[in-house]
C-alpha cells in the first residue's frame, strides 16, 4: 500500500474517531433568576403593627396554582408599604431586593389600584437619577370598598446605551406582575 493510500485511510479514520468524544452527564436545569414570591408588608402610621400578605408560586410557572393572600386594610389610613421579591424555591430562600437595589436605575416597582378611589401609592426610595424605585413607599387608602391591588416589577434596562427609565410604567417589561384582592373595611 502506497504512502498515498495510507494518507487516505488516516484521513477517514480521523473523521470517524472525532465522533467518539466523551460526553458529560445530564443535569437538571437551573433557572438562574426565579421569583416565586411577592411579599407586601403594611405598617400603619403611628403603630408598629405590621400585616404581611403574599403571592406565592413555589414551583414556578405552571404546575401547582399560586396561593394568593387576600389583603384587608382599613379605609382612610396611611400605611408604610414595603415590597419584597423572593425566590423560595431554593433553601435558604433568597431575597431578590438586594439585586434590584444594585440595579435600581433599571427597575421600578409599580403599585396600581383597580379603581383610583381605592388608594394612592407614593414611592419614598430614589435611584441615582432621583427617580422612584418603589420598593418602599406610602399608601393612603380611600373609603371602604373592595377591589384589587396590582404589583409590578418593571425591568427597564438601557436600550442601545441610553437609559429608558423615566419613573413611569411604560418602558421595559414585567419581571413580576401579580394582583391581590383588596378589601378596605373599618
Amino acid at each position, binding site marked *: 500500500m502506497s504512502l*498515498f493510500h495510507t494518507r*487516505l485511510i488516516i*484521513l*477517514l479514520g*480521523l*473523521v*470517524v474517531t*472525532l*465522533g467518539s*468524544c466523551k*460526553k*458529560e452527564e*445530564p*443535569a*437538571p*436545569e*437551573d*433557572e*438562574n*433568576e426565579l*421569583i*416565586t414570591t*411577592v411579599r407586601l408588608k403594611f405598617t400603619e402610621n403611628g403603630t408598629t403593627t405590621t400585616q404581611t400578605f403574599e*403571592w406565592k*408560586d413555589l414551583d*414556578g*410557572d*405552571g404546575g401547582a*396554582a*399560586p396561593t394568593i393572600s387576600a389583603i384587608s386594610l382599613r379605609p382612610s389610613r396611611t400605611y408604610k408599604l414595603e415590597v419584597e421579591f423572593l425566590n423560595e424555591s431554593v433553601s435558604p430562600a433568597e431575597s*431578590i431586593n438586594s*439585586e*434590584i437595589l*444594585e*440595579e435600581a436605575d433599571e*427597575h421600578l416597582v409599580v403599585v396600581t389600584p383597580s379603581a383610583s378611589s381605592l388608594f394612592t401609592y407614593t414611592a419614598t426610595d430614589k435611584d441615582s437619577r432621583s427617580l422612584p424605585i418603589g420598593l418602599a413607599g406610602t399608601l393612603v387608602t380611600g373609603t371602604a370598598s373592595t377591589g384589587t391591588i396590582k404589583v409590578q416589577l418593571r*425591568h427597564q*434596562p438601557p*436600550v*442601545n*446605551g*441610553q437609559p*429608558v427609565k423615566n419613573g413611569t410604567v*411604560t*418602558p421595559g*417589561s*414585567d*419581571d*413580576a*406582575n*401579580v*394582583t391581590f384582592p383588596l378589601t378596605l373595611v373599618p
Partner: protein
Amino acid sequence: MNKKELPPFPLFPLHPTRSKRRWQPQFFAGWVLFLLFHSAYAQTPKDCHCLIKGVVKDRETRQPIVGAILRIEGTSFFATTDTSGRYKIDQICQGKYTLECRIVGYKVIKTSIVLEHSAEEDLNLSEDEVHLQDVEIVARRIQTPLSQKSSLLEGQALDLTRGETLGDALKKISGVTTLQTGASISKPVIHGLHSNRVVIMNNGIRQEGQQWGSEHAPEIDPFIAKRLTVVKGAAGVRYGSDAIAGVILVEPDELPKSPRLSGEVNAAAFSNGRIGVVSGTLQGGLPQWKGWTWRIQGTLKNGGNIRTPDYFMANTGVRENNFSATTGYRSSRFGVEAFFSQFVNNIGIFSGSHIGSTSDLLNVIKNGEPFIKTGFTRNIERPNQLILHNLLKGKAFYNFNGNRLSWTVGRQFNRRAEYDLHGPQASTNPALLFRITTLTSDLVLDHKPLGNGKMSGQLGLSGLYQYNFTDGRPLIPDFEQTNIGIFGLERWVFQHWELEAGARFDWRQLDVFRFVGTTPDPRHHSFTNGSGTVGVVYTPDEKLSFRANFGTAWRPPTPNELYSKGVHHGAASYEEGDETLRPEVAYNLIGSVEYTSQRFKGELGMYHNQISDFIYLKPQAEPILTIRGAFPYFKYTQTDATFTGFDLDTQWDVIPKRFSHNLKLSYLRAYDRREQGYLVFIPANRIENELRWSVGKVFSSKDTYLMLSHLWVDKQRRVPPNSDFMEPPSAYHLWNINIGGMLSLKELSQLHWTFAVQNVLNTSYRDYLNRFRYFATEQGRNVSLKLRYTF
C-alpha cells in the same frame, strides 16, 4: 423541461473555453458541450449521412454511463450508450437538432447540435471527418426524487440573493415562504410547514441544530451554496422519514477539476441596517499530489439596527463569521473528500419585542409601535442569540463494475446561547444554553443499470446518533437519540414513461433525562415505522410533461413536543408538551404539468398533504397564572390536518431575448379536520410578477438587465377565531428593482454587479408569518449593491 437546462450556447463558439466561462451559471446547470468539430459554410443539397457520436459521463466521477438513451427530438433517431458510455447515431440529415439524453437517476439533458457540411466537400472523405459532431455529455446524478418536481436556485437567480439569509434566498422559489423573527432570523416554510418537518441537507449532511424552535434559523452560511434545491412534498425515503414538507439541498460546487488557482470574491452592501458582507473562495490543486484539490471559503457579515419606514428597531444588529475548508482526491475509480465548516453568528433580538407578560404584549399592540425607539448602532446588547455550528464531514466513494458505493459521515456540534433581557442579575451566563452533538453515517449503493439500462436505483443505510444538553431556564430536557434507517429506491425508464418506487424503514430510540426538581425521572421512547414513495413521469412530447407522486413520511414527536414546559417569552404563551404523543404520518399526493415552448414555459404543481396525528399547539380554555401574570395556555395536541394548494410558475418571452415576464402564484389552504377549522400560522396566498428587460451591452457592461417585480401578499383570512392577540395583518404590495450586468476584465476574470432596491416605495406593512408582527412593522426601503468577482 426546465429552462435552466436548455443550452444557452452560441451555436458556433470560436473559443469554447471562453464561452463556457461566460455562461458560467448555466454551465453549472448540469452539462458541458464540446463542439470538437464543425464546418460552417454555405449550405446546399441536403445530405443525410451525418453522424453524431460521443460519450456520456457522470459529471462528478467522470465514469462512463451505461444505458443512457439519446434521442434526436422530432425524429425517430435514437441510440443507447454501450458499456464504455459511447453512443452513435448515423444517417441523419443535415440541419439543426436538439439532442436529448435521458438516463435513469440523472437529469435530462438537452443540447443543440448543428449538422452541416459544405458543398465543396469531398464526399469521399470519411463521414467521421465531415458530418460528425462528437458530443460529450456530462450528466449530473439526481439526488432528488424524479417524479417529484424540484426547484432550483442557482446562477444569476442565486446571485441576486447574495448577502441575504438562507431563508430569504429560498423565498425566491414558489411555494416557499419564510417564518421570520424580525428581519434577521428567517426559516424556510415549504407549503405551509417548517422546522422539524423540513429537512435541510447541508453539503450532504442532515442539518441538526435546535430546528424545532421557530426563532432558530438554519445555521448555514448561504455563500457555501452554489445551488439550492427545494424538493416540495414528502420525501421521506431518501432523506429521512421526517421530511414531511420537503427537503432543501444546500450544495457547494464540486471541487475543481484542474489544479489551476481560481476563486471568487463576493461583496454586498445594504443601506438598511448598513449591512456589509464579504465572502471569498479560493480553490486549486496540489501540484505534487495529482488528483488532490482543495477549497477554502470564508464570510464576514456585520450589520446594525434595521429601519422600518418610520423608526429604527433597537438592537437588531447582526454579526457573522463563517469559514469552511474542503479537500479531496478523485480518480475515476474512487474518491475521498473531507469538509469542515464553522458558522458563528451573533444576532440582536429587537428589544421592543421583549415582553414579560401578556399585558406587556397587549400594551405594545395597542400602542401600534414600539415604546422605545433609538437611532442607529451596530452594538448588539441583550437580548441576543450567540450561535456556533461546526460540521466535520468525510465522504468516500468507490466505483466497481458500474456500481457506486459511497459513504458519508458527519459530526455536527451546535451551541446555541440565548441571552435574555431578564431579571436583576448581571450574570454573563446565557438564560438558555443548548449544546447538541450529532453523528451521522450514510452508506449508499447506486447499483449499475439493470435490464438493458432501463432500471437504476440505490440502496442505503443511514444512522444518526445525537445528544443534547440544555442549561438554564427549563425548556426541554437533556436527551439522547439513535436513529437507524434502511431504504431502497428504484427507477425505470420505458419510452415516454419513467416510473419510480421506493421504501424506507426507520427505527428510533429516544432517551430523555428528565428531572422532577433535582430527582432524575428518565423516560424512554421507541418509534418504528415505514415510509414509501411511488411516482411516474410521462413525457408525451418534448413540450409537455406530467408528473405524479404519492409519498408517505412520518415524524416521531421531538423532545420539545413531548416535554417542553414553560413560558415562551417571545410568543407570550405557556407551552406544555405531552409525553403520550404518537408519531405523525403524512400522505402526500403531488402532481405537476409542465409545458415548454419556444417562448413560453409554464408549470403548475398541485399538492394535497394529509397529515394524521399532526402535532400542533392547541390553545386551552384556562390561562396559566404565573408571577408575571396570566399567560394563554397551549398544549401540544394531535389532530388530522390537510394542506392543499398549488404553485403556478410561468415565463413568457414577450420579445425573445429582450423582454420577458415571469409569474409566480401560490395558493394554500390548511385545514384541521378534527376541529373542523383552520390552522394557525399558515402563509397567506401570494402573486409575484416580474418584468425583465435585457438591455445587452451598456458601456462595457455585458448582459445588462433591468428587473421590476411586484409582490402581492393577501391577508390570511383562514385563521381560527380568537387564536391570536391581534388580527392577521392586512394584504400588502411590495415593489422591487434589480439592475445588473457583467464586466469581462481579463480572459478568465469577470465582475458581476447587481444594484437592487427592495421595498422601493418604503411601504409600511406587517406579515402574518413574522413573529414580531405585534411589535413593529417590516423593514423599509433597502438599497443594495452586490459585486461578484471571479478569477
